[in-house]
């Protein structure tokens, strides 16, 4: 019997897959030195894949395929849209960087889009095997991308570290998944959830859940599984770092949301006590250690790496809160908290990509990633300095920028989950927001109050593509800050 296809629901992924193949063909048919054509194909393909996402969202019906292994609902669509827009911005960040570098050029877009295809599938995956295939599709191209500056030893180190950690986390996760299959007798998340509610949670399931959570914790670089991130982020080409710290990390978070919300959560929140303590510890450690390490960095990419570890911790806060609320039987509050994870993810994507866009733009002249290279940026390039201030302030959570709203829903979920654990987590997050402000403000201080270091005081020239990336990310950061209902609605619809 042939499976039933709903082509409309599959359209975003089919368009993306066709674009991936087209970029590969274009890479070997067009001359090697010029990848602008390939980058155009990639950019148009990503935007074309957004069209069916919009029409599906307009339609609004949930569509399940392949016995419920692949589902297109509001949650999947919101994340697909996020991944596609983030991919578009990443392409804009990369165009000039790749064209000016001495690398294979066309292949860059092929690898980038392959990874994005994995993310798009991950948003719809409701089955352990589909999730695993999607996760590997996300990861394998990024191993190559991290080592893309192939004559540079640091970049090679970045690639190897990322690869070894990636394989280790996959192995742990697979082991956990095999135990879950032994427990539930199915790889469908819905059936695993039903089994959790019906049969309760034996110690075996706790081991399985712990192993798979640790696997995902590596992917989202949560402390104590974060140690690869700073080296990999520093060594990889900067646009790739932006991609890793936003899209790839979000891919890990979506996988975590899928397996926890659709699986371990149970039908009625019965399984929450299995996982929320693990997430609670990961969240508290990631926030605290990420921020303390970020304080001491002198390299802006390393600082952003540790900041992204800390931001990942903030994202885990509503996650743990959802578990606490679910264990207390307050399912409505748990759904709100899951929504807060998605909102934080979307906001974080915009502001972090924006921060990297400024770093890439500034490095075009300074050729340096030291925080001190931002000295006097306001005098030489006021627009860039203002934009960087916006992104840093947003990451720190200062109103009226988008980061403020993300922090707000995060705190709200932790406080309303209540109990000693919920309140403690909110306090830890509060202290960390204050610590985080110092290193974000450190960059601002360099830009506004220091004298420029070099002789060259002309304004930094920003290419068109990079300007586009800055415009998109700045617009989202500002608009969502002033009009947060935009993303709040997405969070509500998703769960």
């Amino acid at each position, binding site marked *: *019997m*042939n499976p039933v296809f709903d082509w409309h629901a599959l359209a975003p992924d089919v368009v993306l897959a066709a674009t991936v*193949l087209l970029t*590969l*063909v274009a*890479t*070997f*048919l067009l001359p090697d030195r010029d990848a602008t054509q390939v980058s155009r194909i990639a950019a148009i393909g990503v935007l074309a894949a957004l069209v069916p996402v919009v029409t599906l969202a307009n339609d609004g019906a949930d569509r399940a395929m392949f016995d419920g292994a692949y589902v297109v609902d509001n949650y999947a669509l919101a994340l697909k849209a996020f991944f596609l827009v983030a991919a578009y911005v990443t392409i804009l960040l990369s165009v000039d960087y790749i064209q000016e570098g001495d690398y294979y050029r066309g292949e860059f877009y092929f690898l980038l889009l392959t990874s994005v295809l994995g993310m798009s599938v991950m948003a719809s995956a409701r089955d352990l095997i589909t999730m695993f295939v999607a996760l590997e599709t996300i990861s394998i191209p990024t191993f190559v991308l991290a080592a893309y500056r192939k004559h540079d030893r640091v970049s090679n180190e970045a690639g190897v570290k990322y690869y070894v950690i990636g394989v280790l986390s996959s192995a742990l996760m697979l082991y956990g998944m095999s135990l879950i299959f*032994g*427990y539930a007798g199915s790889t469908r998340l819905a059936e695993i959830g039903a089994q959790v509610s019906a049969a309760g949670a034996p110690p*075996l399931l706790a081991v399985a859940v712990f192993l798979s959570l640790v696997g995902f914790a590596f992917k989202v670089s949560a402390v104590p599984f974060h140690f690869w991130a700073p080296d990999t982020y520093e060594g990889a080409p900067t646009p790739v770092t932006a991609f890793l710290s936003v899209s790839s990390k979000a891919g890990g978070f979506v996988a975590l949301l899928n397996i926890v919300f659709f699986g371990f959560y149970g039908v009625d929140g019965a399984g929450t006590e299995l996982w929320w303590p693990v997430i609670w510890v990961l969240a508290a450690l990631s926030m605290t250690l990420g921020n303390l390490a970020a304080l001491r960095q002198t390299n802006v990419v390393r600082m952003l790496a540790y900041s992204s570890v800390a931001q990942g911790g903030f994202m885990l806060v509503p996650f743990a809160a959802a578990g606490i609320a679910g264990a207390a039987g307050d399912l409505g509050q748990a759904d709100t908290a899951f929504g807060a994870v998605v909102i934080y993810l979307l906001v974080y994507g915009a502001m972090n990509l924006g921060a990297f866009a400024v770093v890439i733009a500034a490095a075009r002249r300074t050729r340096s990633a030291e925080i001190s290279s931002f000295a006097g940026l306001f005098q030489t390039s006021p627009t860039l300095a203002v934009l960087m201030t916006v992104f840093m302030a947003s990451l720190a959570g200062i109103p009226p920028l988008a980061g403020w709203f993300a922090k707000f829903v995060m705190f709200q979920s932790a406080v309303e989950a209540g109990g000693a654990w919920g309140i403690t987590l909110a306090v830890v997050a509060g202290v960390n927001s204050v610590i985080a402000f110092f290193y974000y403000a450190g960059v601002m201080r360099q830009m506004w109050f220091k004298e420029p270091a070099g002789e060259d005081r002309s304004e930094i020239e920003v290419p068109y593509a990079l300007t586009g990336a800055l415009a998109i990310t700045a617009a989202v950061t500002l608009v969502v800050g002033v009009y947060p209902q935009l993303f709040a609605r997405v969070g509500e619809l998703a769960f």
Partner: protein
Amino acid sequence: MTEFYRQYLAVAVFVVAAFGMVGAMLGLARLLRPTNPQDEKYVTYESGADPLPLFGQANVRYYIYALLFVIFDVEAVFIFPWAIDVDGLEWFGLIEMTIFIGVLLLGLAYVWRKGLLKWA
């Protein structure tokens, strides 16, 4: 004891049996055989070839061929179950498999165009 744990008990029995079997064979041999050690006898047996030096250099070009071999070998793994039910899958199956092989051939075309199939 649930059915699930009972299945794992079988695995445990197998593990014990496996260790017991190997231990019995080696132990028995040790008791029965004469011992007359020489250095040459302790060299690892490697099809009659000298096992050392351990890290001989292999041409890096073999790598790309090994990779291509694996890709098309795995392709065969997917084609076999499809071939068994090729009637039942009708045109849909044929088109699907054509797309699958086409995607893999694109990879081969890429390697070819990049000149990696030339040994020189």
